[in-house]
């Protein structure tokens, strides 16, 4: 065998075995969490509420809080990220301002989430007097997700062929209309994919929430649809422990006798939900792309 062929084969084997190792670690971890958690997941577990001291508590409130927080965060984060991305991809000229903005986004994306959580605690919770609340949590998570979301949106916008923009301008469309009517619809699948992936990250986040959305849940009324009522489940100003925070809390200071079961069951639910988010991100993006290009 020639030397170069041998090298090629060795490199391939090395790459394949490293990839297999990575897949094994990830797969093993997920498999372990599911295997140890799923037996504790039951309908009652999913729909029951937490107990303070007795065993047999559920995670319904936390599950709802997590989903609601995803919605609230995306409501704030997606418009912000989209505007930033539109500026960066459609309007920004090469220069110090753009470079500075990109640098800021880079830096933001490497901040540890606990730092963002503490920042949120100081600014949103204390200074702005939002107290421990869904809103404070949503804003902290917005900061956390803005860099990735902005980049996802910018990539999606840049994927749209330059010629489409030219064609629009050539027909006498003002630039903002080219952006909203031609570029944005074409970029929508990519944007949705980015948003759904962010949703997964939000769902799994704990550190940024411990000091912003809080670690406790008040008794809420799921029949009260008025978001301004203090006990309404939709009130964004109420404290809300999410599923990820719940797992952390049960593990550190859980007083219930079945703390281990609750924690591993909740972890399994968390993983499955994030998995669904990721699959949905792909499916939805593809579906939308196909529907838009009919």
């Amino acid at each position, binding site marked *: 065998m020639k030397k170069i062929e041998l090298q090629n084969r060795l490199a391939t084997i090395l790459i394949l075995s490293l990839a297999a190792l990575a897949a094994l670690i990830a797969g093993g971890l997920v498999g372990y969490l599911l295997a140890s958690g799923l037996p504790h997941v039951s309908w009652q577990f999913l729909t029951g509420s937490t107990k303070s001291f007795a065993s047999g508590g559920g995670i319904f409130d936390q599950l709802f809080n997590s989903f609601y927080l995803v919605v609230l965060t995306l409501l704030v984060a997606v418009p912000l990220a989209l505007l930033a991305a539109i500026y960066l991809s459609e309007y920004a000229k090469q220069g110090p301002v753009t470079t500075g903005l990109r640098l800021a986004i880079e830096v933001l994306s490497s901040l540890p989430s606990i730092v963002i959580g503490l920042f949120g605690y100081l600014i949103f919770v204390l200074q702005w007097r939002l107290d421990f609340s869904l809103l404070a949590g949503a804003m902290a998570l917005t900061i956390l997700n803005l860099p990735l979301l902005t980049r996802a949106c910018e990539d999606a916008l840049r994927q749209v*062929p330059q*010629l*489409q923009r*030219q*064609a*629009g*301008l*050539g*027909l*006498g*469309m*003002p630039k903002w*209309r080219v952006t909203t009517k*031609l570029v944005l*619809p*074409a970029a929508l699948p990519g944007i949705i994919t980015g948003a759904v992936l962010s949703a997964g990250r939000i769902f799994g986040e704990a550190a940024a929430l411990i000091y912003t959305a809080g670690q406790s849940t008040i008794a809420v009324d799921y029949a009260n649809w008025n978001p301004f009522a203090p006990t309404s489940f939709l009130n964004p100003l109420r404290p809300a422990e999410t599923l990820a925070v719940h797992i952390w809390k049960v593990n550190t200071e859980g007083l219930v006798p079945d703390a281990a079961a609750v924690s591993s069951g909740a972890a399994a639910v968390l993983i499955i939900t994030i998995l669904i988010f990721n699959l949905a991100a792909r499916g939805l993006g593809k579906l939308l792309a196909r529907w*838009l*290009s*009919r």
Partner: protein
Amino acid sequence: MTQSPAITVNQVAVAYDSKPVVSDVSLAFPAKQITALIGASGSGKSTLLRCLNRMNDGVATVSGEITFHGVNINAPQVNVYRVRQQIGMVFQQPTPFPLSIYENVIYGLRLRGVKDRSLLDQRVEESLKQAALWEEVKDLLKASAQALSGGQQQRLCIARTLATRPEIILLDEPTSALDPLSTNQIEATLSQLKKDYTIIIVTHNMQQASRISDWTAYFEQGKLVEFNQTAQLFINPKEERTANYLSGKFG
């Protein structure tokens, strides 16, 4: 030439950042004729073409005068959207929007707020007929434009440009991405269109320029070398540089 020009450029110069790419071009484009812009790659043909409907705005600095109906459309206060509706552009690659054929054709009209259904229907038929596409697509107007072949898409783009009733149509290598058959169809279309429109076309294909154009302008390194009736320029060029270029091209 007896007819008055459709559009005139006077001492036009273009620079990207501070790099000059077109300098001191003066040229009167005859109305209702086809003018071909030829020259080596990078000689500034596209750049000059894009000046004619202000597509260089925000991309390059254009100085000099471009006169259209007695107005200098290169002046900053000119409404560029109006200019682009009157001077349409077709690009190197087909650029259909992800919409139906019908919606593609009337895109420019919708933009202007035209809602009258019968007017829209009529424009669609007219424009597609002018672009020699009507017979092929009249039964699938509601179908996606992206399902058409490349040549059909390019004729659709011509129809889309025609639908806003421009006076001048600018085409930048409109057939360079197409097969010979589609190219022939587009050329036939353009020859038909010159009855009603002024056509300015950039092309790398000398045969194409000699086949369809009435006038030809030869560019070299951002400068206009020679402008004459196509037959004259091809058979009996006045400038040696033109002759060299043509002999190199025809081999």
